[in-house]
């Protein structure tokens, strides 16, 4: 039996991170569920053992079901029958397998039939599922919507919807409209209060909705008549049983074809308000998007891992000029780079997830009792880091995923271009990851704050203080040189200048290379198997940063005019 969890020791390694003990204790509230639920852990070791065992199930299903169905699902795709979306046959089997194994509702509390898993193992499951089938990772991953209901909805709504997640009800987040994509403040779908029916009514169009025919929909809509910006938007939950939404079409996409993306018309659809009016975009969707970005990053890392495995095994057996192609420097460089970029993305994925785990756990604790001053500070601190690390992560993981799939096809040569091999599908699937849930350009806009307010630098300084194995000290020296270079580049332009925005991506990436380099270096100190990737990635990052630094340094005043 193949297993995408047990065949990849890098995952278990992340579960053994020293901060996990704190994360699990916060999530399990000092293991108070133990006496009440027979599937609750008794202590830290027990919880980690649970994570391991459950991730083994995810790994087995991903390798033995999802991966085997993926090509056929990509070919067949979903269809509309009588205003209902019917998944491809393979997608239905994928969903059944994961549902019957109880793998929906992973992060929800046990009181709502969830598994009460911390984000780290939940995100890890998302990565593994994506390695099996990137398109299916959307349908499975949207269970994350439940987290927003859990955090912001009334107890009544939680009781109504949350236990259904573990039973396999799927979710969607309905945000985008024809004229509101990256700019969600422009959302027009109308929500009006219906006095007679004692509910809200939704009317309007949503476009590009992933898993369009989901059982439970979270909808962003304009509840405040006469408003035009984000402050007039509220957040609603709609139940599919009302049958008040028309599915106009399923989009014909480049990739992730198994995941139905639809255009919807809400026809006086009854819905319930989540949380408070006017906070839809500015509070709830922002929280939802951060979770979703983590999910897309996990999706990208899983796909990178799949691409690496395909390319590596092909290069090991393909012979040309009387040699295995893996022996040619131009080929082994590509393979080693894919490995290093995948390891680096994963290191950042779980570092960011740990930040999210801690601050989210504290938010939920605060719903039960007032936090101590230390806890409050800790929550704020981790939330700040999560807010700048999440866009940095999404930027790097999804851009690398594209690069990795591109290079993997190159390693396959002509065969990679053919439908006989899975590489072309992976390459197509990769392309959406740096577009949806905020394009790379939007991630730069969110992450540049970490450059401006010094948050990235403070983390870099923290990593600098970690004790490094003497055999790897040369890597730390390189990272320190890169840090000095980064500071020089960042200081060149006023933060209010157009040049600063123009070079934002270069500056964010420079910070990113240093952060990713440190994370890999620290991992390499804990485990030898990351040494190669640390060496390769830091050498690569140093060259990339030098290029950005040179471009910024040589950028003459007035040059920006030529770009306009």
């Amino acid at each position, binding site marked *: 039996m193949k297993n995408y969890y047990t065949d990849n020791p890098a995952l278990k390694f992340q579960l053994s991170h020293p901060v996990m003990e704190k994360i699990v204790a916060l999530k399990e509230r000092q293991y108070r569920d133990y006496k009440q639920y027979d599937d609750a852990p008794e202590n830290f070791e027990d919880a980690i053992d*649970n994570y391991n065992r459950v991730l083994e199930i995810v790994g087995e299903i991903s390798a033995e079901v999802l991966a085997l169905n993926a090509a056929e699902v990509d070919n067949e795709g979903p269809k509309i029958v009588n205003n209902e979306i019917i998944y491809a046959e393979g997608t239905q089997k994928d969903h059944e397998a994961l549902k019957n194994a109880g793998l929906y509702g992973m992060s929800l509390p046990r009181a709502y039939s969830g598994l009460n898993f911390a984000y780290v193992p939940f995100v890890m499951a998302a990565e593994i599922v994506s390695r099996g089938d990137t398109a299916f990772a959307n349908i499975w991953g949207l269970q994350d919507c439940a987290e927003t209901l859990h955090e912001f909805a009334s107890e009544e709504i939680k009781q109504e919807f949350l236990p259904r997640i573990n039973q396999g009800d799927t979710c969607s987040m309905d945000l985008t409209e024809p004229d509101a994509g990256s700019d969600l403040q422009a959302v027009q779908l109308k929500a009006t209060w219906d006095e007679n029916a004692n509910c809200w009514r939704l009317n309007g169009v949503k476009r590009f909705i992933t898993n369009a025919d989901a059982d439970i929909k979270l909808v962003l809509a304009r509840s405040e008549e006469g408003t035009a910006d984000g402050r007039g938007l509220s957040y609603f939950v709609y139940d599919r049983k009302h049958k008040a939404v028309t599915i106009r079409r399923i989009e014909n996409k480049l990739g992730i074809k198994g995941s139905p993306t639809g255009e919807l018309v809400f026809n006086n659809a009854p819905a319930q308000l989540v949380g408070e009016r006017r906070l839809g975009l500015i509070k709830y969707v922002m929280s939802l998007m951060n979770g979703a970005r983590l999910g897309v990053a996990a999706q990208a890392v899983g796909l990178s891992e799949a691409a690496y495995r395909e390319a590596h095994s092909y290069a090991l057996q393909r012979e040309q000029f009387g040699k295995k192609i893996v022996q040619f420097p131009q080929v082994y460089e590509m393979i080693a780079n894919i490995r290093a970029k995948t390891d680096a993305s994963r290191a950042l994925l779980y570092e960011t997830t740990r930040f999210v785990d801690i601050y989210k756990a504290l938010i939920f604790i605060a719903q039960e009792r007032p936090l101590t001053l230390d806890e409050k500070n800790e929550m704020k601190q981790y939330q700040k880091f999560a807010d700048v690390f999440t866009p940095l992560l999404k930027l790097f993981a999804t851009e690398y995923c594209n690069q990795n799939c591109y290079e993997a096809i190159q390693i396959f040569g002509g065969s990679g271009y053919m439908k006989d091999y899975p590489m072309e599908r992976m390459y197509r699937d990769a392309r959406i990851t740096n577009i949806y849930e905020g394009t790379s350009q939007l991630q730069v806009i969110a992450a540049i704050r970490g450059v401006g307010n010094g948050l990235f630098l403070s983390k870099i300084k923290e990593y600098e203080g970690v004790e490094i194995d003497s055999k790897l000290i040369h890597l730390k020296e390189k990272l320190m040189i890169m840090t000095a270079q980064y500071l020089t580049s960042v200081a060149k332009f006023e933060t209010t200048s157009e040049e600063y925005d123009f070079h934002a991506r270069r500056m964010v990436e420079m910070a990113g290379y240093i952060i990713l380099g440190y994370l890999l270096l620290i991992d390499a100190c804990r485990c030898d198997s990351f040494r190669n990737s640390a060496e390769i990635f830091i050498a690569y990052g140093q060259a990339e940063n030098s290029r950005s630094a040179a471009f910024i340094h040589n950028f003459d005043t007035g040059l920006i005019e030529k770009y306009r």
Partner: protein
Amino acid sequence: MIKIVVLIKQVPDTRNIGKDAMKSDGTVNRAELPAIFNPEDLNALEVALSIKDIVPNVEVTAITMGPVRAAEVLREALYRGADQAVLVTDRKFAGADTLATSHTLSLAIKKIGNVDLVIGGRQAIDGDTAQVGPQIAEKLNIPQITYAEEIVEVSENKIRIKRRLERGIEVVEVLFPCLITVHSSAAPCRFKNAKRVMKYKKACTISELQDDKKESDTDNNLIIEEWNAADLEAYPDSLGLAGSPTKVKKIDNVVLLQKESRIITSSEKEIQSLIQELSKEHIL
């Protein structure tokens, strides 16, 4: 209520054997081979669980005869959906052939009482005899359906089964109680369930509790029943080695040498002749 007993066996994984799989005396080197859930017993468990999906009020009990460590496959049956499990274990059972094994298991099934359906895999991958299931049916004096592949229909008192035979399929119907042995072409077993794994990983037998010096977790009702020869009220002469008329006379260690290999070119003629030869030898 329909009471189903699923017979399972922990076996050495003979599917991926290396050079140390056999000892020099010709017996299986169990230490070298991982112990697994016998594959066709997984198919049998799935048949039982799928009946539970279709008909209300079904109770599935997994049962195995073996050493204390065989409780591992019982836990796995619980992870996948069995309601309870029984370990039949005693030093007196050691060395049992199919006759002694079927005798012991039939006593255990009688002890459970009022069983409607006994379901097992067609055969185990260590002995490959396919005899234990049919012998149990004889001892319990109930009808048997072998080579089962699919449930066509099931109700509270009867079942209709599709059998996979050498030259086709056969559909038969039988009233409860009866015994079914399941073929590998039947549906694969469902995956483990996350919550069940987290719950039943703590399930153990009394012997395991004593070995680990753990305290009994009776609150959670996570004790796996354990029965010995005395519990089954069995005659010592009919158990284990004493109750096994099968005696191994001689074991040949077949060693394949490279000189016995032949190179076949990819020409149409040579491939055809190879196919004919393999077919004549009943290998294909």
